[in-house]
């Protein structure tokens, strides 16, 4: 067993576990978007960063890929970590404002504004689908192409894949392209409508298709009761 300190508490972890696994085992919450049990760690979304090392020489590392080391000091929610996470969420929100998962996280971290030019992308390139397809479905139908901001996910040469069995695993794990909050005005990052006393989404028919950042929201509860 490896002995380390997380948030000042002495904990033990089995050799080969990551910091994320160790922290979660002890009930410490670390948000992730590109991590899923059963798929290999990837370290792309950077949301799971934690502060490691001695105070004066500490640095941030993604906990999903960092192995538990003997005597390591880890802080999962230090000021530096929270500051970084908030900025990452703000960036995510600016790119994929309609993802429910991202909206929920943003809400949780108290993000009330978004200072970048609004985009409407439906992918954060977390790579869950690629790994799902390869590691769990043994299909390898999709992969990455391009580099930098031209990076994307598709089948080889953008042709209809012969190995894809249309299992839907890729969509199932996706944090961004799942059902979206259709109420949300495209130009507004956060709808916030449900925080009103009489939420506007109440007036919509198929409310359960909607995504909003208060989960579950007042409106949903009222509707469900009816």
């Amino acid at each position: 067993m490896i002995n380390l300190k997380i948030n000042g508490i002495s904990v033990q972890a089995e050799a080969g576990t990551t910091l994320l696994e160790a922290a979660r085992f002890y009930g410490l919450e670390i948000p992730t978007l590109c991590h899923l049990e059963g798929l290999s760690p990837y370290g792309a979304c950077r949301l799971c960063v934690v502060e490691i090392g001695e105070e004066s020489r500490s640095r941030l590392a993604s906990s999903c890929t960092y192995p538990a080391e003997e005597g390591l000091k880890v802080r999962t929610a230090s000021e530096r970590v929270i500051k970084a996470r908030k900025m990452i969420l703000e960036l995510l929100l600016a790119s994929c404002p309609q993802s429910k998962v991202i909206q929920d996280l943003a809400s949780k971290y108290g993000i009330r504004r978004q200072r970048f030019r609004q985009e409407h992308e439906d992918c954060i390139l977390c790579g869950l689908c690629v790994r799902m397809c390869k590691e769990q479905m043994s299909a390898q139908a999709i992969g990455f192409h391009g580099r930098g901001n031209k990076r994307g996910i598709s089948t080889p040469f953008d042709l209809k894949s012969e190995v894809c069995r249309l299992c839907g695993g890729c969509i199932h794990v996706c944090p961004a392209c799942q059902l979206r909050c259709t109420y949300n005005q495209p130009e507004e990052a956060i709808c916030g409508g449900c925080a009103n006393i009489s939420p506007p989404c109440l007036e919509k028919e198929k409310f359960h298709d909607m995504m909003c950042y208060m989960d579950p929201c007042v409106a949903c509860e009222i509707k469900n009761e009816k």
Partner: protein
Amino acid sequence: MIKLKNSQALEELRTELVSRRQMYSAVITICAGTGCRAWGMEKTAEMFTAELRARKLDKQVKLKMTGCHGFCERGPIVVIKPDGIFYQKVKPEDVKEIVSETVLNRRVIERLLYVEPGTGKKITYEKEVPFYSLQQRLILDDNGAIDPNSIDDYIAIGGYCALAKVLSSMAQQEVIEEIKKSGLRGRGGAGFPTGYKWEFCRKAKGDIKYVICNGDEGDPGAYMDRSVLEGNPHSVLEGMLIGAYAIGAQKGFVYVRSEYPLAVRNIGIAIEQARKYGFLGENILGAEFGFNVQVSRGAGAFVCGEETALIASIEGRRGEPKQRPPFPVQKGLWRKPTNINNVETWANIPLIVKKGADWFAQIGTEKSKGTKIFSLVGKINNTGLVEIPMGTSLGQIVYDIGGGIPGGKQFKAVQTGGPSGGCLPREMLNMPVDYEKLAEVGSIMGSGGMIVMDEKTCMVDISKYFLTFLLDESCGKCFTCRKGIQRMLEIVTDISEGRGKLNNINLLKELAQVVKDTTMCGLGQTSPNPVLSALRYFQEEYEEHITKKKCRAGVCKELVSSPCQHTCPLGTEACVYIALISHGRFKEAYDIIAKDNPLPSVCGRVCSHPCETKCRAGDAGEAIAIRALKRFASDYAYKQKYLPPKTTSSYKEAKVAIIGSGPAGLSAAWSLAQKGYQVTVFEALPVAGGMLAVGIPSYRLPKAALNHDIEAVKNSGVTIKTSTRLGRDITIQGLKQDGFKAIFIATGAHRGKHLGIPGESAQGVIDALDFLKDINLGRKVRLGKRVGVIGGGNSAIDAARTALRLNAEVTIIYRRTKAEMPALREEVEGALDEGIKMLFLTAPGRVIAQENEITGLECVKMRLGEFDDSGRRKPAAIPGSETIIPLDTLLVAVGEEPDTSFINEELKNLVAVNKTIVVNPETMATKEPGIFAGGDAVTGPATVIDAIGAGKIAAESICQYLEGSPIAREYSLTRPSVYIDPVEISEEEMLTARRAETKTLPVKDRICSYAEVDLALSKEAAIKEARRCLRCELELLKKDEGKKQSMEKASVN
């Protein structure tokens, strides 16, 4: 070739090779590096081969194609040995002469020698060229000595000796200890101690281990690794062999990018040759050690220089980094322990083994040992590769080795470490370059790229460039790297296009910090460095872009439109009047000038023309002669007796007083009169014009030209009262009582500073400004035969040239060198042409006088030392170098200060310690309501154009004050007011057109009169010159037009 069985055999081979080489009487080495190939060395080399064969010299004279010599600016480079005669820029037609003169008769051909730019001295031998002599070329020296495709050459200079030593007499751990002791650190950028890395890898568990040579050099402007691989591939191989032996690796990879075809070819040949001699394979030199090397070609992704991405690339996967740990020394290539070092690091290893760790450790600084190769590129005279000991100062690299900035431009910054590095300003020129110091100031060593930037480089634009590069080269795996860089680029682009807001800077900093903190690999973690360092040292420039819509370098297109108009303190539409001149519409051209500038004839002659410095035609050729064109237009108006039409708007009651009729006063008066105010200018001297009338000699600015401009100002409704001095004839209080609602003080800087040396009060020591004033006012001046002038500014040159016209023998004494003289270039050259002597690096010590009459000046020699904050070198006295210069008169021109003695008790708080008047530089308003000030009285001695600019700003503020609105300055994007069709130019004209030379009076006619020295352009010459203009503003007009149209379209839809 035979396989060498042991080190004995290697030594025997070496002795034989050396003796075989002695049969040549001469060796001609031609640099065959990529730089010299681009200069066309291949043709030159063919000519040499043909010529030697024709003269049947090929048995006696060896022609050797070597690797890069480093001095790429001067290629193709040819060095004739054994003498080491250095020829530069050798063309095929020079070959015959070189063979017959230099090779056969050891005669030097003067015209092919390198000429030192500062001194004009010709330098014969390679080792004496300052570019080389100031370097310590441990690694690069061999590049010029050997043919990279000949292993025999390498063995002959002692190659593979270090390997033999290691295999025959050193244990593995001993080698590692030696490298550790040497203090060698990785040359790829991060600077990890090499010996320790080897030790980790050696101790890592596993039978199979690898060593890799990282030759994926991708920084823009960096090419030292390429040159080493191209020029001396065996040194890299030998280093890898030694490393592999110490670590226990059996296989090595050389990872080179495909964009380096010559490097790929040369390292491939080297591997083949080494294998034939038995340096690669089993039982190397009889030892129980086997090793093989394979070349792996990269596809040119920048991120593949990162070690985990590089490993992925060799394995055949996407070149993407992986989170460390595990480190490659634990689990690297195919999950086996792998040691990766950079090309230059490997090339250092044989040297350390051969000469010993102690020898190596004494080079460099405490924590950074040895030498480092930098590729010096950008705005620098001597582009090339320089190898210097760690700890050499940045200034030495840029100025002593690099030869300074071309075109006499100002040094602005140097960018080290490529896209991951930072920009260091001129305050850092004294900084010794090593790993620690660079990190401390916010940059990195990187692989050693050094991009020099001059005043025409915009820091916002540079950040934009590097971010664009990184956005493209980021692998895109990490969210914060991919999106973070994109967002930073968006913000910087907004700023450079005039859409920025001040809080953008904080957002940029906040974002940059997070990107630095949270990304996975080195590329992402260092990607904010160009932005952060630019903000650290040049935040002011960012703010200027945002608040003032100003790009001081004249680069950011959307703000600048055309750099000439943008740079002019008056916003004169140079591009427009040049276009009008090119169409022959001279009167309209004059109107365009006169619209913004009340003194066109003056500015056409004495303006310091910042517009020409920033002119884009000067980037890759010669700047447009804008000042000469302005003079042409104003001369045209003068000859036609044409005054610009009066454009006074509605009559206004309020009276404004202007104190001083210099450029600032006249321009404020003119601007206010145009707005309809009642303006009176009060001038202390009997003539109007201030410094223009009494400070500038009439051979530069004829009185008739000045008076034409003053006439135009008067014509706009201004009254000028001469011989009325503030404090003597009028007072501020009195003016207020007389009903003047606002007062603008523009009294200039008329009092010369003192030298502060003993004996200064002697008779015959005259203030240069007083001297010029007396001459200009026609007063009598007593001047001796031998006249000395102290100073290097325009006043000094003016005084010297005026004294010369009074039959004196004139010597200018200046404490720095010609390059540092603040005077206008053309003035300095004019003075030299007229026969004025100049003593540089000479400072006055004391005035020698007899009976209080000057007889001479004791001077001391200076040398240039460290750099000051202005980026110039501080002169320091050389003790014991005192000499006496016999003089009859000494004119002192070491700067001026305002004479503000007229300010009474009540307004005393307006004056600063240095006697200038304190104003808000944005509005020219003083603390006292209704009182404004501008020009030299505020700034100290400055240029004419700045003073005119200040006058115009003050006029705006006075207007706001009188209307009762808040005083604030508004800024907008620079745009021309009218569109003028471009002229059609044939290709031939485009290729042959040269800058119009300003003709001058012959020297013999000049020195006996005050006739104007510079002659006007002829009509034909002016039109021809104007046709050369690139019309920068048109590009944007087209763009603006497109934007407007698409907006209209959108609104219709």
